[in-house]
């Protein structure tokens, strides 16, 4: 894992029986810049980017854009868990990482 990826949730499978709640996982998923796999209580799965959630309504929900770009709205009460399966597109994209790469390129060119 590189310096820029240290904070990424990529690959995380939340353990909902030990310290983290589904509501917290939904918030993490909302902040995550990659696809997640949403596990339904009926055993079904949906892969997509979780772009919205609202817990302040009568039926709290999340909204995803699936891999075909179609939007879905799913009640949170239907969700068993959310796995962070997709690539974190923000990881390694920091300004610092770019500056480091640029400095390394300059150093290599200087050697040549």
């Amino acid at each position: 894992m590189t310096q820029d990826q240290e904070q990424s949730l990529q690959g995380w499978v939340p353990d909902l029986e030990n310290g983290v709640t589904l509501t917290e996982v939904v918030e993490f998923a909302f902040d995550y810049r990659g696809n997640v796999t949403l596990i339904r209580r009926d055993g079904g799965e949906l892969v997509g980017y979780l772009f919205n959630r609202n817990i302040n309504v009568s039926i709290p929900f999340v909204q995803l854009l699936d891999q075909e770009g179609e939007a879905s709205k799913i009640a949170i009460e239907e969700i068993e868990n959310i796995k962070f399966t997709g690539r974190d597109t923000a990881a390694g994209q920091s300004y610092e990482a770019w500056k480091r790469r640029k400095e390394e390129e300059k150093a290599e060119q200087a050697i040549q």
Partner: protein
Amino acid sequence: MTVPISQSYAVASYVIKQKVSRRKRYPLVLMLEPLFRCNLACAGCGKIQYPSQVIKKHVSLEDCLQAVDDCGAPIVSIAGGEPLMYPFIGELVEALIQRKKYIYLCTNAILLKEKLEAGLFQPSKFLSFSIHMDGLREEHDDSVCRDGVFDIAVEAIREARDRGFRVTTNTTFFEGADPDRMRGFFDEMSGLGVEGMMISPGYSYSKAPDQEHFLRRARTQELFAAALENKKPEWNFNQSPLFLQFLMGKRDYECTPWGNPTYNMYGWQKPCYLLQEGYAETFEELMEETEWKSYGKASGNPKCQDCMVHCGYEATAVDHTFSSLRALKDTAVATIKGKL
């Protein structure tokens, strides 16, 4: 002249109409993001880091126009992503001109010359290309993480000016900016004949990977005071002079995030262009159900404490202009005399 008289009149009429109707919260500029796809990958840009299905997707032309109609703001800023990559950008601009909306087409200009040569746009008082320029060559290419983009943008500005288009620039100054270099940038853009410059300090997007490189409030005032001190007469800013005085620490304003509502493929972004705390399905839902008191400096929200970005405060300054004779006079004097 920084803004055409017709545009100033349209905005003034609109704001006065809101005041007369005692509308407490009203939009001034719609931030319309038809897509997140971009031909640059700037570090610190929280708009482009999404999975591929999001990057490939765009808002339909019909939904864009519905958002414009629902919002009703007199100015539409087409942002993104790179709007020139939107497949219906020509149709969108034409439809907005028919609606007499003043358009700021925000672009990195990489594709601008090509689109102009293809005849995609025609000059109009309603259309201004707002070219993303984050400083002189070194600073800009550094900011967009690609060498050579500054020169491409300069060439595109010249091309657009030669063809009779309105051209403005849109600049974010980040931590470490040098006031003397900023003044050099103002000189260079003025020399290119841009109609006006829009400037703003950066903000730390909660989802941006580049938290440390944005300005804090106190340093922002110090920086802009130094850069704008003894403003040269040839520097034209496409902004309220009261907002610039706010950046210089001469005024204190509160954020009006509803002034620049944002619409994109997810819906209406809550609460503002910078923070992504959820989405409303309709403009009415955004305005009526957003907890506005939870945002802005006075709210104590830590995400808002250092923010002085134009999407939150320019609408405040414009609203202030029409709130008292004193503010109207201050704006007029600053505009006519060119002093901040």
